[in-house]
C-alpha cells in the first residue's frame, strides 16, 4: 500500500509499467502495461486478443523472467498450445520449465441453475492455486464473456471488481479479454469504472484486405496516444507500427554517397547524395527509374555496404536479368549476402504489413541502404492522409537509423497536376530526381533533372540520359535555336550543323581565295600603275633634264654671246677710243 504523504511535500508517484515485449507496443505506451493493474483487451472475433495476451505471457517468461498463468474459458490447454505454435510460441517448453501454467475453465451455461446467493470464490481459489504453482507475476483471463452467460450481472460486476483488486494486492499485472458489443451495459460500467486500462483491437476489411488496428481507449495515470495504430500478426507474433507525430531529432551525417552515375554526381554538387538522406526517383513508365536505383545499389555494394532492395513490381530474377543487359552485375552481391531482396506483389496486402515486415528485416539484417521500387504500388488508392502518415513515419524511422533510402515512383509533374496529393510524397524526400520524357518529332528521349536536393548546390539543368549496355550515361545539353534537342533530332541537327559548318568553311575558303586573287590583281594593277608612273616620271625627268640641259646651254650660249659681245664691245670701244 502506498504511504500517505505529507500535504506539504509534493511527490510524484509515477505509474510503473511492465514491458510486454510486443514489438512496437511498448513504444506507444511508453513502457508497456500498467504494473499490478488489470488491462482489458476488447475486440471483435478474430482480432487477436488471445494472441496478444499469450505473447504478453510468453515474452514475460522468456525475456523478463516473469512466469505467467493463462486461464482460458474458451479453449482447452492442448488446443491453445497447438494454435499458438503458428505464431512462434513454444508453450510446451515454457510449461515444462514451469514458466507458464495453462488451465481451462469450463462453464457450461446450460447446467447452471441459481438457487440463491453466490460468488466466484471458486475462480479465486483456482487462480491462486495456479499462481502459486509457477510464482506468476502475469495473468491472463481469456475471456471475460464466458462468465457472463447465465450468471447474475450484479454479482458478476462486484466479483470482477473484487478480482481486479485482489490481483493488484498480489502484485500481478493482468490482462483480461472481452468481446466488444457483448453485454454492452455491463461492459461499459466495468470499462468505465473498474478497469485501469482498456485497449481496443479491431480487424476491419477495407477493399478486400484486412487491416488490423489497435487503440488505447484509456490508461489511468498515463499520458497515451489516442490514435489508432496499425499492427500485424504473423509467425513472429504481434507487431505494432508505432506511429508518432514528433519529428525526431536526428543527427545527420555530412558524408556523401555516390549515385553510381558519374555525371549525376556532378549535378549533385559534384559529390553525390548525403548519406542517410531520402531520395525520390520519379518518372512515367519505362523511363529508367529501376536502372537508376540499381546503379546506386551496385555502387554501394561495391563499397561493401549492405543493401536491401524491396521490389514491388518485378521479381528478383527479372531485375537481375534486366540489369545485366545494362552492364550491372548484381548476382555476386546477392550470393555473398551483401544485397538482400524483399519482393512481394502488394495487390492484396496493405502498406502496414509491408512496412512492418521490412522493419523486421532491417532490425535483423541492418542494411545501410534501402530501395523501394516502386513505392506507389503500395498505395492502392493513391496517397491519402493515413498512408502519408505511415510513409512519413517510415522515412523518419529510416533517417533515425541513418539508412540511405531511394524510392521510385510513377509520379511526374503532370500527374501532380491531376493528383495533388502525389506531391505529398515528394515533400517528404530530401532529394527528388525527375526522369522526364522529352518528346519531339514523334520520338521520346529521356532527360534527367534534379528537381530538388536539400542542403546542396545542385544543378538545375535537364540533361539527356541514355541507357547503354555499359550503364547509364548523361549527355551534355544540346541547345539549338528551336530549343533543346535530344535523340535523333539532335543527331540530325548536329549533322546539319556539321554540314553547315563545312559549307561555311568552304565558303570562307572560297572567299579567302577570292580576296587573295583580288589582292593579287590589285597588286598587279598597282604595280603596273606604279611602273607606268615611274616610267612617266622617268620621262619627265629626262625631259626636264633635257630642258635643263638646253637651258643650261642656252645660258651658257647667252653668256658666251654676251662675253663675246662684251669683248667685241670693249674692243670696239678701244678702237673707238683710239679713233679720237
Amino acid at each position: 500500500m502506498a504511504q500517505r504523504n505529507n500535504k506539504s511535500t509534493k511527490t510524484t508517484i509515477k505509474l510503473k509499467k511492465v514491458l510486454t515485449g510486443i514489438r512496437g507496443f511498448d513504444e506507444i505506451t511508453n513502457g508497456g502495461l500498467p504494473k499490478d493493474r488489470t488491462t482489458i483487451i476488447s475486440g471483435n472475433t478474430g482480432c487477436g486478443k488471445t494472441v496478444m495476451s499469450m505473447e504478453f505471457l510468453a515474452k514475460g517468461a522468456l525475456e523478463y523472467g516473469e512466469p505467467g498463468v493463462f486461464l482460458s474459458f474458451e479453449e482447452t490447454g492442448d488446443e491453445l498450445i497447438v494454435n499458438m505454435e503458428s505464431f512462434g510460441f513454444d508453450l510446451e517448453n515454457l510449461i515444462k520449465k514451469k514458466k507458464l501454467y495453462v488451465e481451462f475453465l469450463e462453464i457450461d451455461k446450460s447446467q447452471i441453475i441459481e438457487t440463491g446467493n453466490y460468488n466466484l470464490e471458486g475462480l479465486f481459489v483456482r487462480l491462486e492455486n495456479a499462481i502459486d504453482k509457477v510464482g506468476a507475476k502475469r495473468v491472463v483471463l481469456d475471456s471475460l464473456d464466458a462468465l457472463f452467460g447465465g450468471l447474475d450481472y450484479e454479482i458478476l460486476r462486484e466479483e470482477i471488481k473484487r478480482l481486479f483488486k485482489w490481483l493488484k494486492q498480489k502484485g500481478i499485472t493482468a490482462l483480461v479479454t472481452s468481446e466488444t458489443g457483448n453485454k454492452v451495459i455491463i461492459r461499459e460500467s466495468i470499462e468505465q469504472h473498474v478497469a485501469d486500462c482498456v485497449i481496443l483491437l479491431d480487424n476491419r476489411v477495407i477493399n478486400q484486405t484486412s487491416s488490423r488496428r489497435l487503440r488505447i481507449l484509456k490508461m489511468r495515470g498515463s499520458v497515451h496516444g489516442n490514435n489508432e495504430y496499425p499492427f500485424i500478426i504473423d509467425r513472429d507474433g504481434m507487431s505494432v507500427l508505432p506511429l508518432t507525430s514528433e519529428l525526431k531529432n536526428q543527427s545527420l551525417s555530412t558524408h556523401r554517397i555516390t549515385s553510381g552515375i558519374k555525371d549525376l554526381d556532378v549535378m549533385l554538387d559534384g559529390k553525390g547524395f548525403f548519406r542517410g538522406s531520402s531520395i525520390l526517383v520519379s518518372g512515367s513508365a519505362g523511363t529508367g527509374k529501376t536502372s537508376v536505383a540499381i546503379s546506386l545499389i551496385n555502387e554501394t555494394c561495391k563499397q561493401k555496404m549492405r543493401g536491401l532492395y524491396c521490389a514491388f513490381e518485378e521479381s528478383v530474377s527479372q531485375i537481375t536479368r534486366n540489369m545485366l543487359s545494362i552492364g550491372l552485375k548484381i548476382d555476386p552481391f546477392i550470393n555473398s549476402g551483401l544485397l538482400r531482396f524483399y519482393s512481394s506483389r502488394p495487390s492484396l496486402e496493405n502498406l502496414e504489413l509491408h512496412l512492418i515486415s521490412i522493419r523486421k528485416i532491417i532490425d535483423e539484417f541492418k542494411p545501410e541502404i534501402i530501395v523501394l521500387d516502386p513505392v506507389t504500388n503500395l498505395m492502392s488508392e493513391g496517397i491519402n492522409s493515413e498512408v502519408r502518415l505511415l510513409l512519413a513515419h517510415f522515412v523518419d524511422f529510416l533517417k533515425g537509423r541513418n539508412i540511405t533510402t531511394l524510392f521510385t515512383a510513377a509520379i511526374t509533374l503532370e500527374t501532380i497536376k491531376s493528383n495533388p496529393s502525389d506531391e505529398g510524397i515528394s515533400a517528404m524526400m530530401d532529394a527528388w530526381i525527375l526522369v522526364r520524357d522529352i518528346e519531339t518529332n514523334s520520338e521520346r528521349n529521356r532527360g534527367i533533372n534534379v528537381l530538388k536536393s536539400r542542403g546542396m548546390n545542385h544543378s538545375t539543368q535537364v540533361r539527356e540520359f541514355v541507357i547503354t549496355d555499359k550503364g547509364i550515361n548523361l549527355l551534355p545539353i544540346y541547345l539549338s535555336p528551336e530549343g533543346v534537342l535530344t535523340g535523333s533530332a539532335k543527331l540530325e541537327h548536329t549533322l546539319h550543323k556539321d554540314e553547315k559548318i563545312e559549307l561555311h568553311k568552304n565558303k570562307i575558303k572560297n572567299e579567302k581565295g577570292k580576296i587573295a586573287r583580288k589582292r593579287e590583281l590589285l597588286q598587279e594593277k598597282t604595280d603596273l600603275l606604279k611602273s607606268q608612273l615611274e616610267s612617266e616620271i622617268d620621262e619627265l625627268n629626262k625631259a626636264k633634264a633635257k630642258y635643263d640641259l638646253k637651258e643650261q646651254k642656252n645660258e651658257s650660249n647667252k653668256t658666251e654671246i654676251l662675253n663675246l659681245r662684251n669683248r667685241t664691245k670693249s674692243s670696239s670701244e678701244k678702237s673707238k677710243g683710239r679713233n679720237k
Partner: protein
Amino acid sequence: MSKPIRQSRYKYGAAPGRGAKPEYILRLFVSGLLENSVRAIKNINEICEKHLKDNYELEIIDIYQQPELAISEQIIVIPVLIIKHPLPERRLIGDLSDIEKVLQILNRN
C-alpha cells in the same frame, strides 16, 4: 481467507453396508465458513433430512482444503451443489435458499 475446517463430511441416510445404493448422491462445494457457504450447508442439511430421508449421500467439500477437486470438478462459482446421481448431472449454484427450486430439481428425477 481460507480457514481450516473439518475434513469433508459424509452423511449417509442409510447405514453403510446396507447394499442398496442411495438414490441421491450430492456434492456440495463450499469456501470455508463464509456467509454463503454456511447458509448453504445449513440449507442442504435441512433439505436432506426433511425430504430425502436416508436416501442420500452427501459430501461437503471445502475448496480451500482440496483445491485439486475444485479443478477437476471445474468449480468456479461457490457454493455449488452437484447432483451426481441420479443422472443427468446437474449443478445448482447459490446458497440453496430457494428450497422450492432445489426440491423441484431433485424431484424431477
